[in-house]
């Protein structure tokens, strides 16, 4: 756990928690040790709950788009349906095909899921509300997400099934070719904020509320990033690694039970994570459309007052999650709007369209930064 380099006004749960424990007579290092696993557990739980919400939204929105009702018997409005799905997967028999490679077969889904969960390390929900404000921030996410193709190739190979192998190869090809425009889009943002840290990126966007969000300065980057994020998550216009009509279920074909659940969980956590990162990079993260300081000043409250701090903290979490789920909604809507692209169209889009545009975007950003250092973070 690193202490934040920029100590500014805002909730610092870590400090208050350790202070409280020391007040109970514990030593400083013990208190830190007790604090250590708490944020990680919280974020893990948050990620899983986010996935449950996501699955429910996916079912309900898909149903609404197709004029169906969707789940409605498991709990009010079917909110318990994802739980039922998860339970079913937990209790299903875990099958390893006879001619498959058992070790790699088991390791594959783990390698897919773990990097995605590790990436939650850098997702900020507030000034101090993140597990670790590491200096390389967003770069950590990019490098971690490049481990995923190995897991996909591994499970595709270990299944000893031609559909699985093809699906794994497609997934890996797709994710390495969309990583480049993605990284270039992120680079343009990093150039403007002069920092890789997600906290700095958000802080730089929250000077004038909605007007200072990066989406106005990087509209092209926003589109590139979102397209690439959808491709990395294998969401529908780009879900050809698991194209049902051609590859049965791609690299997941031979999986069942908990191992399949890991893939399922991984893809949904990845979607939520991508949406969160879009909101962090382009939509002002935890920022309210109107600056909170300005609002507090209007109400005659000090920004440092404890109550105001708690309110701004929770508002930040709500805003981040709200923005992320708006994007998830958009992704689900897109799923039922556009047809799946072919593999050649996919690679064309990645290499011939997004990559040049991302490069031009980067150059233009650099030029604008030199020309108008005030507006583009000089």
């Amino acid at each position, binding site marked *: 756990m690193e202490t934040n380099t920029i100590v500014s006004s805002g909730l610092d749960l870590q400090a208050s928690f350790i202070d409280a424990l020391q007040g109970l007579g514990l030593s400083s290092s013990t208190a830190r040790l007790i604090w250590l696993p708490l944020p990680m557990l919280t974020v893990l739980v948050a990620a899983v709950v986010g996935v449950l919400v996501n699955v429910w939204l996916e079912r309900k929105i898909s149903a609404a788009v197709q*004029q169906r009702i969707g789940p409605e018997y498991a709990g009010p409005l079917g909110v318990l349906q994802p739980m039922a799905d998860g339970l079913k997967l937990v209790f299903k028999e875990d099958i390893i095909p006879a001619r498959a490679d058992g070790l790699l077969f088991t390791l594959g889904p783990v390698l897919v899921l773990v990097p995605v969960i590790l990436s939650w390390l850098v997702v900020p929900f507030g000034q101090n509300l993140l597990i670790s404000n590491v200096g390389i921030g967003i770069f950590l996410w990019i490098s971690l997400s490049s481990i995923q193709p190995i897991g996909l190739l591994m499970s595709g190979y270990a299944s000893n099934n031609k559909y699985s192998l093809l699906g794994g190869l497609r997934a890996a090809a797709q994710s390495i070719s969309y990583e480049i425009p993605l990284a270039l889009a992120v680079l343009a943002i990093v150039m403007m904020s002069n920092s890789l840290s997600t906290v700095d990126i958000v802080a730089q966007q929250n000077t004038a509320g909605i007007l200072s969000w990066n989406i106005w300065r990087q509209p092209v980057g926003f589109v590139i990033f979102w397209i690439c994020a959808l491709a990395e998550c294998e969401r529908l216009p780009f879900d050809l690694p698991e194209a049902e009509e051609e590859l049965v279920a791609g690299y997941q074909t031979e999986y069942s039970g908990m191992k399949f659940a890991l893939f399922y969980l991984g893809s949904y956590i990845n979607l939520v994570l991508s949406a969160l990162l879009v909101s962090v990079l382009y939509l002002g993260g935890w920022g309210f459309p109107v600056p909170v300081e300005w609002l507090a000043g209007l109400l005659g409250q000090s920004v440092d007052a404890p109550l105001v701090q708690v309110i701004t903290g929770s508002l930040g979490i709500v805003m981040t999650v709200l923005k992320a789920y708006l994007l998830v909604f958009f992704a689900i*809507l897109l799923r039922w709007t556009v047809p799946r692209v072919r593999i050649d169209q996919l690679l064309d889009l990645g290499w011939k369209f997004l990559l040049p545009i991302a490069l031009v975007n980067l150059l233009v950003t650099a030029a604008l930064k030199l020309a108008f250092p005030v507006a583009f973070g000089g």
Partner: protein
Amino acid sequence: MFGFLKKVGDYTKDAVSAAQTLSQGLSVTFDHLRRRPITVQYPYEKLIPSERYRGRIHYEFDKCIACEVCVRVCPINLPVVDWVMNKATKKKELRNYSIDFGVCIFCGNCVEYCPTNCLSMTEEYELSAFDRHSLNYDNVALGRLPTSVTSDPSVFPLRELAYLPKGVMDPHGVPATHPRAGKLPEQVLETLAKPSTPVEPGDQPQ
């Protein structure tokens, strides 16, 4: 140089038109979000089959003369007519009659050609069974009348779209007394000039 600029222009035009098409598609799906679901909650609600619905075939043993026309017009000679010649009366004596609904395609040819009208189509379509052999109906099973959707107390009958009043899209909560859109067959007949041959009025739809 100029050619390159034109290329860039075309490229941009393509991208813009793609974005336009995409947003058009998104607006269509978004519009669907506010529409009511058209779901029929099946075991509790059922659509009323239309008048000419070709469901399970009903058969009257007593009317049958064992002429085997149904077998001949059947695309796969499906009905099994089991009869013996009674030497004393010199007449066919029908012993058994069966149709296998696991194989039948419900084309209705047998019903169409039956000279004594002993075959007819019902509105029954729930023919699921645990064993495909139990779909081979004998003359007793063929003689049973299905429970009508409208008379089943455990089922909420719903009208199909074509039988709803004008402008109504949702069959839920439409009273049975409200007439369907358009004219009934007998109303159409009234508007016509005197028909040369008397025509029976069509069935009253729900």
